[in-house]
């Protein structure tokens, strides 16, 4: 019998102060987004690791509305996925839960299977033109926004409307490409596993292709090397990231030269937000401290990371993995494997999964953020991010001049900030799953991106997860490491990592990459063989275990733990509370951390 976790606690009808259902009226395909409602326990809801900070009203609108309830549902209908209709969203406070929408009518499933039989091969044959066409379309719109003078545009509501259309279109393209690529990849994965290929090897077959994200990391590393060369590394060493810009400016000379080069770098790579698809966080251009902090991290490494050697190793490892796998296959199986590999190398999902972030996930919210900040300026708002605490209809009212930003609306925003902070502090206690929990899921995004495999689904249901000392997950990057666990809620806390720390988090995304240069191991609640942490863990040689389901729950900050990335096992050796006083002091900085969200969002 299926286990049911009630949703009642969150289905109270209460949400952000001043929320009305019409605030969330927007087009959807199969099921609309909303706060949790009675009856929702019939679905299987998973806490979405992408937004561990929580989402402001506008950020909640953009992702749940355009991402899940338009983008995934649109793509799942148009491919279509035979047994699934995409993902829908609910909110518990500021925290987003996703749920795959099943198709249950057997006749309909059959009809959908017939359609995918035509559409998937068509997609794979035309993959390059479909993805590159979509990407170029988005880049073209992006260029348009870069050319817009926001301050000089009289009608901001029109501009915000354009920004919203760009965002929504990006989500159509995102999932329109992602679903068929994933279906192809997971079919190949299943075939490989069935042919007796070690599943841990399959990820390697497709590794080693350069991405825009890796390119950014290389450029950051080059800037770090340049700082060393210019003799200004100590400036980085003696200042916190938010002080660095001013400190470098004061230093003058070589530091000014470096800042010029840094700004050139930002003009190409700095139009990326600090988190995936969250209008609530700034870009590197807006907040230089993020990128400067990354350079500071790179400088802490004893020697420069040899990206070329890493790329060569990745390619060599890839070729060796392919040769080993092929040698165990019959001639007939080799034919299937070779064709599958060719298809997946042409439409390389693991590569795309990293590369697309540069064009979509880290970028397409920015024009809306700029529009909101310009509106805040015009309305003399107290904070430049006030508008991010409005729902879309409220924002349109303010932008079109129908409703001034003052009085009631202003105080609502103040209350909503408190609401955000309240729920931000509750993140670590949020249930990982809610509703009716199945044994297995079929939506490829849930399987591959969220790591919802049968084992992790069992793990999140363990009533004793809090006290469990051995966790099992996906063996994502081989090797063993012991160290002090640093349990991070979001990339805002990356500064708490020390050389040799073991990173424990819900999941990582591209902005976490530089941290892998100093940590000894990594453990994630979600993800799989091809999630960000797995790929980067392999690239940096950091033992990594993903899809444990409950690591952030079972492992405490400061615990002494062991990560075995070869077997996928994580063991808590000593709880922080039981450790020697000296170690407790080290763990203390975690306990003292306050909500850093204000400084980032504000």
């Amino acid at each position, binding site marked *: 019998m299926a286990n049911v976790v009630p949703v009642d606690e969150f289905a109270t009808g209460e949400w952000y102060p001043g929320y009305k259902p019409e605030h969330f009226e927007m087009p959807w395909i199969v099921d609309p987004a909303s706060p949790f409602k009675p009856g929702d326990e019939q679905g299987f809801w998973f806490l979405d690791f992408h937004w561990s900070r929580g989402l402001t009203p506008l950020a909640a609108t953009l992702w749940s509305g355009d991402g899940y309830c338009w983008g995934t549902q649109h793509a799942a209908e148009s491919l279509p*996925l*035979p*047994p*699934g209709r995409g993902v829908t969203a609910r909110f518990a406070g500021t925290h987003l839960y996703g749920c795959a929408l099943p198709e249950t009518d057997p006749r309909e499933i059959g009809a959908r*299977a017939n359609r*995918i*039989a035509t559409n*998937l*091969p068509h997609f*794979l044959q035309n993959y390059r033109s479909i993805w590159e066409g979509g990407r170029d379309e988005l880049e073209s719109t992006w260029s348009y926004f870069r050319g817009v003078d926001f301050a000089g545009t009289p009608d901001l509501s029109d501009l915000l409307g354009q920004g919203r259309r760009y965002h929504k279109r990006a989500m159509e393209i995102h999932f329109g490409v992602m679903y068929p690529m994933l*279906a*192809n990849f*997971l*079919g*190949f*994965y*299943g*075939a*490989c*596993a*069935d*042919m*007796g290929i070690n*599943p841990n090897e*399959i990820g390697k077959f497709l590794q080693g292709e350069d991405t825009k994200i890796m390119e950014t990391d290389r450029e950051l590393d080059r800037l770090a090397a340049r700082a060393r060369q210019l003799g200004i590394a100590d400036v980085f060493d003696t200042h916190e990231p938010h002080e660095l810009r001013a400190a470098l400016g004061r230093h003058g000379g070589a530091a000014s030269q470096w800042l010029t080069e840094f700004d050139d770098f930002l003009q190409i790579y700095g139009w990326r937000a600090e988190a995936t698809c969250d209008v609530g966080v700034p870009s590197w251009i807006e907040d230089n401290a993020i990128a400067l902090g990354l350079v500071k991290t790179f400088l802490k490494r004893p020697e420069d990371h040899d990206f070329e050697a890493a790329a060569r190793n990745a390619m060599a490892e890839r070729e060796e993995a392919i040769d080993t796998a092929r*040698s*165990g*296959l*019959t*001639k*007939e*199986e080799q*034919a*299937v*494997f*070779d*064709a*599958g590999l060719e*298809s997946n190398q042409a439409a390389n999902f693991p590569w795309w999964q990293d590369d697309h972030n540069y064009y979509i996930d880290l970028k397409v919210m920015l024009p809306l953020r700029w529009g909101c900040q310009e509106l805040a300026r015009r309305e003399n708002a107290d904070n430049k991010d006030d508008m991010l605490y409005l729902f879309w209809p409220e924002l349109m009212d303010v932008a079109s001049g129908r409703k001034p930003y003052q009085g009631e609306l202003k105080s609502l925003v103040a209350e909503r900030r408190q609401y955000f902070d309240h729920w931000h502090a509750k993140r670590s206690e949020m249930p990982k799953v809610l509703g009716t929990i199945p044994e*297995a899921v*079929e939506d*490829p995004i849930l*399987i591959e991106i969220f790591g919802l*495999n*049968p084992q992790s689904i069992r793990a999140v249901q363990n009533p004793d997860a809090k006290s469990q000392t051995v966790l099992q997950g*996906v063996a994502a990057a081989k090797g063993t490491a012991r160290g002090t666990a640093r349990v991070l809620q979001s990339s805002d806390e990356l500064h708490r990592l020390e050389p040799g720390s073991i990173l424990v988090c819900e999941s990582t995304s591209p902005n976490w990459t530089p941290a892998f240069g100093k940590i000894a191991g990594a453990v994630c609640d979600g993800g*799989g063989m091809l999630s960000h942490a797995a790929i980067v863990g392999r690239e940096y040689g950091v033992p990594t275990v993903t899809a444990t389901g409950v690591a952030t729950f079972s492992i405490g900050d400061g615990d002494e733990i062991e990560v075995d990335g070869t077997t996928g096992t994580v063991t808590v050796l000593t709880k922080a509370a039981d450790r020697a006083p000296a170690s407790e002091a080290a763990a203390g900085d975690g306990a003292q951390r306050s909500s850093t969200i204000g400084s980032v969002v504000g």
Partner: protein
Amino acid sequence: MTSPDPTTTPVIWVDETDPTTAIELGGSKMGRLSELLRSGVQVPDGFAVTTGAYLRHCAETGLDAKIDAIISRLGEQAPEAEVEAASAEIRGLFVDTPMSDELTTTLTDAYEELCLRAVDVNVPVAVRSSATGEDAADASFAGIFDTYLGVSGIERVLDAVRNCWGSLFTARALAYRLRKGISHHAMPIAVGVIELIHARASGVAFSVHPVTGKADRIVIETSWGWGEAIVQGLVDPDHVEVGKADGRVLRYDVAHKRIVSAFDFAVGAVTEIDMPAKLADRQVLDSEQISAIASAVRAIEEHYGHPVDVEWVIGRHRRAGDPVCIVQTRPVTVTSSAEEAAPAAYDPVALAQKYLFSGKPIPGR
């Protein structure tokens, strides 16, 4: 050669009988050996004590009437205990009923002839039941009748033959025939007396994967010594997979082999003993031997036109390049379902359906 009269020919030789007659008189097991020999496969020398000999023995000694009397007491739904008691009673009759002098002489002559051919005294033989009748090739009867390995000397051979006859009435065989309404008269038993190959290594081989049914590979399981410990599941054997199309070794898993079937000179039979420690973890087959086994299996499958499993032996004196010796073969008892068959081409839609949209976890995840 002329077709011998089944009622009067008590002995036929593997190499002197045409396969059709061999199956008719010598049962499926012996018949297939004749057939394999004809098709160029190396098999051990030996002869069959025919069904005619068995039938005549039962008729002349009055066994028939006694057996029928015991069986007639059993209903179709006879309880297990009654069937077992009847089985024990009948098998006791076979042990206690000596062969006629005439048959004893014939078998003694045949055994001496086999010793002469092997240039050996009291040559050790395998005495194997060889069933007849429509169901004989059926998997249901696999391993149901007795086999004695390493029987040496005519007295022991004669005892083993009578024990094999009796094994037509094991409790399992009796129960099966009662349930199916088959008379034991419809499936008289023959017995093979075959030179025992002095085994360095032996094992089984399948022309398709016995579990998944994949037809693109040959699967070999092997251990040191004779194959009994493998057939009876007493030892965890080395597992080898070979591509059928190109003969490449796809995998070789060396097992920790704890038991070995070895010849016990004191008892005069092959028995199971502990594997010497130094052999337990050693790889049994080299690539030349694997290739010889694979080519025999391929030839046998081609000859029959359907998947087969075989028991094979590598004799102590086999040299590289020699064929391996096949001691038994039968149609494979696993059929591959269409779903499990290896895919013929990379079909992303079919694979997504199979692994992603089937409601089952993706293998390996």
